[in-house]
């Protein structure tokens, strides 16, 4: 029983990471038809930004209490800023050339980890987090790391905020409409490119937050973290339906849980394979993903 509880909550925590990455990927693809292979790089930027700030380089930020909150905010903001720059400098000029656009995002996805390695080395760096978040708590006989709860809580808050944004604001309305029919949005007199930048900013912030909280989950940061998480985030996006936030949330939980349980009860590594099998089964049963539209 205690093993099941631990696996379930760890799976949820991992699912939360996937969701934070996948929500932005899904919105970006749904709205702009851009497969953003640089999304993992945004996660890494968030992770290193937070690590850098929490290691005492940013005044007032640190590894404990409010200082840590500030460090996470700094990492998240850095990721959002990087995403906006990426959209303005690379994605937008290549809008009429989708193939080059994909190559550009792949390039950034490779260049950022290389740059991070060049500056801080290729090895994992221990991630300084508050002591309160590195402990465990007892639940139904299991010792659960606190950070699993932090991750899940953060993902739920981001999910709720995204739903509020999409359902309750004019910008959100533009994004939802743009996911359905971008040309018609412009034909209503709306500059849909502003929604592109906004969606990149939101997606970048969420991915960077995943980087910051991923540091807690893994206990360290390394340049390749973003890339390996990105693969599963893509699986989540395809399963959840491009452009669907609710679909991404459901698929994240499914992928996180399946991966944890399969890795524990079968051979380690088989969980990753199980995720792919899950994806194939789902696509065969429901070709448009779990929800098939933005919900």
């Amino acid at each position: 029983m205690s093993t099941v509880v631990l696996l379930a909550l760890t799976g949820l925590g991992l699912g939360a990471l996937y969701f934070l990455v996948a929500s932005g990927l899904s919105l970006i693809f749904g709205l702009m038809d851009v497969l953003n292979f640089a999304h993992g790089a945004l996660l890494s930027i968030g992770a290193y930004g937070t690590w850098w700030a929490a290691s005492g380089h940013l005044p007032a930020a640190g590894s404990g209490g409010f200082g840590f909150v500030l460090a996470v905010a700094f990492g998240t903001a850095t990721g959002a800023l990087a995403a906006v720059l990426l959209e303005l400098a690379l994605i937008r000029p290549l809008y009429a050339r989708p193939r080059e656009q994909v190559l550009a995002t792949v390039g950034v996805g490779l260049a950022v980890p290389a740059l991070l390695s060049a500056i801080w080395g290729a090895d994992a760096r221990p991630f300084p987090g508050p002591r309160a978040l590195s402990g465990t708590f007892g639940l139904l006989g299991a010792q659960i790391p606190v950070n699993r709860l932090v991750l899940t809580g953060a993902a739920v808050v981001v999910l709720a905020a995204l739903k509020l944004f999409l359902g309750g604001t004019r910008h959100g309305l533009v994004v939802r409409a743009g996911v359905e029919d971008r040309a018609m949005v412009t034909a209503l007199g709306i500059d849909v490119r502003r929604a592109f930048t906004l969606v990149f900013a939101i997606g970048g912030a969420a991915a960077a937050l995943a980087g910051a909280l991923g540091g807690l989950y893994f206990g360290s940061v390394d340049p390749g973290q973003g890339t390996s998480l990105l693969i599963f985030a893509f699986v989540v996006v395809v399963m959840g339906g491009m452009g669907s936030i609710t679909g991404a949330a459901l698929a994240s939980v499914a992928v996180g849980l399946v991966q944890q349980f399969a890795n524990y009860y079968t051979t380690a590594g088989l969980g990753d394979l199980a995720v792919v099998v899950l994806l194939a089964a789902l696509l065969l049963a429901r070709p448009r993903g779990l929800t098939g539209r933005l919900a």
Partner: protein
Amino acid sequence: MNGSETPLLTVRELRVVIGGRHILHGVDLDVAAAGVTALLGRNGAGKTTTVRGILGLVPRTGSVLLDGEQTIRLATHTLVRRGIGYAPEDRGVFAGLTVAENLRLAERRGAGEPAYGLVHELFPELRQRARQPAGTLSGGQQQMVAIGRTLLNGNRLIIADEPTKGLAPKVVTEVAQVLERAAQAVPVLLVEQNLAMVRRLAEHCVVLADGRTSYRGPAAQLLADADAMRRLLGVGRHGAAPAGAVRTEEGGV
């Protein structure tokens, strides 16, 4: 054209090439400063592409003057903000958004108070169905949303692409009434295959054939000329209309 009055919209030599294929080879048309100007032509003549070219929804060259100002280089959203309401051929309604959200999205800042009073007076159903997802509406109701959007802002021009296509006769009549009323305030460019609609609403008309303008003039004159109708629109041969010909007077207007 009707003589001295300057047109609201002047299109000259409009050319559209999509994927290497020449679709418009130089369309000329004027939209009169008042009333309805009908854009006619057989299926595939290039009516929809002309409208999309005017709006910048497809790459185009040539000249499009709105009130004398060149707009050919403007992005679609900038041009539309100058006061154009567009109801596209596929209706362009956002299926996942509610009726109210579809209308709210169409509100343009700087275009005055949105005219919900007018829209709800003309289409009371839209008020009752405000919270319903537009994807669950009937074709007629979706067309009401599409036309309602064009009436919400104080537009200088309304462009409607086959607004009565595929609708039940009763709804066709309703749409005709609404457009007739709208045209008293705002000039309308109406793409239409239903000749009864054209007869009832249009003062001027433009006919396209194979991506070129083949006729421009008063609507009544064209409609009265059986020979021209046959030649330009394929109407009236062998009793029944051949494939691709413009529909004759049905549609319950």
